[in-house]
């Protein structure tokens, strides 16, 4: 029983931080969300999971081009996200 309890503790979901910037931050009305994540998943799946949280978020993600970064590196949606990673979603950049 104690062994089972331990393995349950290991499998507990870790909070993956999702950051939103600029127009996307305004569209989702939030700059940061925590998404419980159990296992590695591709960014595309994580986005589907995120969109399932609310129609508001789903609309924000589909209404515009969204760039994606994992742990502060620009990546495409085939990239893998580990539980606890820092994921960022934002519109095309316009600095400089």
């Amino acid at each position, binding site marked *: 029983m104690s062994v089972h309890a331990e393995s349950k503790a290991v499998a507990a979901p870790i909070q993956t931080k999702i950051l939103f910037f*600029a127009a996307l931050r305004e569209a989702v009305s939030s700059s940061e969300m925590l998404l419980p994540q159990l296992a590695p998943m591709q960014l595309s799946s994580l986005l589907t999971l995120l969109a399932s949280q609310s129609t508001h978020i789903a609309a924000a993600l589909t209404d515009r081009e969204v760039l994606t*970064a994992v742990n*502060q*590196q620009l990546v495409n949606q085939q990239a893998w996200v580990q539980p606890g990673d820092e994921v960022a979603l934002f519109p*095309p950049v*316009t*600095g*400089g």
Partner: protein
Amino acid sequence: MPSAPADYQLICRIQHDDFSLEQEYQALLRPDCGAVVLFSGLVREQFQAEPADSLQALELEHYPGMTERAITAIAEQAATRFNVRTITVIHRVGLLSTGAQIVLVGVASAHRADAFSACELIMDFLKNQVPIWKKAHFHSQAQWVDAKATDQAAAARWVQENTL
């Protein structure tokens, strides 16, 4: 894959405060550098016809941490491809009025062609690969600035040249 020379130096700052072009220029100078190229980007006047309005300020938002990482990677790419000694990139964030300085990119090198190419490459990538966004505040409304296709093309040309 070649890496940036060991004696190459980068100054990178993201700040709200204004900067002094002269001070940054002096900090770039090295005895073995005969060429310095500086780019300064400013908030320029902008007018719109319908309804008649003019730009008051740009609001710049960024992704702290990733911004510095992305700029460092771009500068290192420039220092790897071109023979440069010192690079300075300063980008302001927050609310900046018309006429304000936004960004400074400075490069010092022995000869001019390297400094010109490195400075322009950094600016082109800064427009495309660094998580900074501009919101244009007009008197009657505010809107996020759209990314420009010309800026994508400008960055793409360095990639093409690289593979030749």
